[in-house]
């Protein structure tokens, strides 16, 4: 088909232009879409929040500030109640592949209404986060009263574990860690290298059940509908391909590189918690899952089923992508 129906799309995200999210996902994905649609659909990326603030991106996609947006669901809490299940503590994810696959398959199964106002193209995750600290955390008692940088749900998680959560932007964390305002941070290992936090922390406690962040790649519905059905099909194919080949494992690659750098170049010590110790931690964060279920029920959702779906999928894909 040779129609004149060309669509130029703006894509907004918050990572710096050197970040793998831009270099390995957004740019190649945009190129693949251009190729698949024979140049009828082009995507121009605006990294570093140059087009839209990180927490305004989803709304920005809806009201046309940008055509495509990539950001975190959790930046606008309450807006995506069902999807919070994929970030709940106490569910174990072996890596970002697992966590991303669980979320994407889970969304397809649950088909939550909250993301129907845009054309969701894919989701991806940071995968599990670890604790990196200035003093060793080998057991729960080491965490007692320890100031850890955390925002949102993670602050709650650290609170029930007995730590003292201190909220601040990731950009402030380096300075706070170096001065000792906080003694640690909870997040994907990537942060150690990307934000250079390995320079100001010494220990890394592996906690693959405490943390996960879910990112979306989504498009304005009107813009999507302006694309011809054949091109839509071609784009969907590119999306599935990029989800499997790039997005799912994007953070694993960064996390592995960052871990290697932190251990070999910066001399960080990696601490593994014993099975019993891990169970103790998981038990403590259970009430947060219960709270999620109760809140879901209050809002008229099938809280237990949603939680069960996430757990079932995590077991399935933990086995598959170990």
């Amino acid at each position: 088909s040779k129609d004149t129906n060309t669509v130029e799309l703006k894509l907004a995200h918050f990572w710096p232009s050197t970040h793998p999210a831009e270099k390995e996902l957004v740019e190649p994905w945009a190129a693949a879409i251009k190729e698949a649609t024979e140049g009828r659909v082009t995507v121009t990326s605006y990294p570093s929040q140059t087009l839209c603030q990180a927490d305004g991106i989803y709304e920005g996609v809806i009201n046309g500030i940008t055509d495509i947006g990539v950001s975190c669901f959790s930046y606008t809490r309450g807006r995506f109640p069902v999807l919070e299940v994929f970030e709940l503590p106490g569910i174990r994810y072996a890596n970002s592949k697992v966590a991303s696959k669980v979320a994407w398959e889970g969304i397809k199964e649950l088909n939550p209404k909250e993301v129907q106002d845009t054309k969701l193209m894919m989701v991806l995750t940071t995968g599990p986060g670890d604790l990196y600290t200035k003093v060793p955390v080998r057991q729960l008692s080491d965490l007692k009263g320890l100031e850890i940088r955390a925002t949102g749900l993670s602050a709650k998680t650290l609170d029930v574990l007995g730590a003292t959560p201190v909220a601040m932007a990731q950009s402030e964390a380096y300075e706070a860690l170096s001065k000792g305002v906080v003694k640690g941070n909870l997040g994907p290992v990537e942060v150690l290298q990307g934000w250079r936090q390995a320079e100001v922390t010494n220990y890394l406690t592996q906690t693959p059940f405490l943390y996960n962040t879910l990112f979306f790649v989504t498009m304005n519905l009107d813009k999507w509908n302006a694309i011809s059905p054949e091109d839509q099909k071609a784009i969907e194919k590119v999306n599935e391909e990029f989800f499997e080949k790039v997005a799912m494992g994007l953070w694993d690659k960064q996390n592995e590189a960052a871990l290697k750098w932190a251990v070999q170049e910066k001399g960080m010590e990696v601490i593994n918690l014993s099975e019993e110790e891990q169970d103790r931690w998981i038990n403590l964060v259970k009430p947060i899952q219960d709270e999620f279920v109760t809140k879901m029920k209050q809002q008229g959702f099938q809280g237990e089923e949603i939680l069960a779906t996430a757990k079932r999928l995590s077991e399935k894909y933990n086995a598959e992508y170990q």
Partner: protein
Amino acid sequence: MDISIKWVKEISKGLDKLAGLCFFAVMLLVVSNILLRALFSRPILGTYELVGLLSAIGISLALAHCAFQGGHIAVDIVVNRLSTKWQAVINAVTGFIALCFWLPATWYLFKYAHLMMVKGLVSSTAQIPVYPVIYLTALGLAAFCLVLFVKFTVAVRNALADISLAPYVWQPELSDPVLSDPVKKAS
């Protein structure tokens, strides 16, 4: 006319005082959070978000009175050389353009507040609903528009009237004249 100006002034002054309270509260909140965290390991969860919400209220409620006092700075080197009458004409025109922008912007902010209420946006840790804060921000902007409107009417009147109406020419009035003339205060 002058009574309505007085009313707008009182309203903006009242909102400004509330804004002052907000900043006072921000200081108290941050300092108590630091003390509780350092002394008892018991920080106030959600301080981070509350500071942002209180700041948003404080800033937007202060906008109107700031505008009333002529606090939003402008380049006056060119216009100041014109006659009072021409200044009034220019003020009326720019005032009108500004209103054409700020009024719909305020309306969109109310719409945004409503949307966030429907979508259930809450702050990230303490999970406080955010929409009342956005409504208050919109309210601050509405008062700000009211001040702009009053200034616009004064400018129109000055533009249409004779120069002999000089007392009606808008006089920016500062909360503390000392700041504008520190020398006087010091001596």
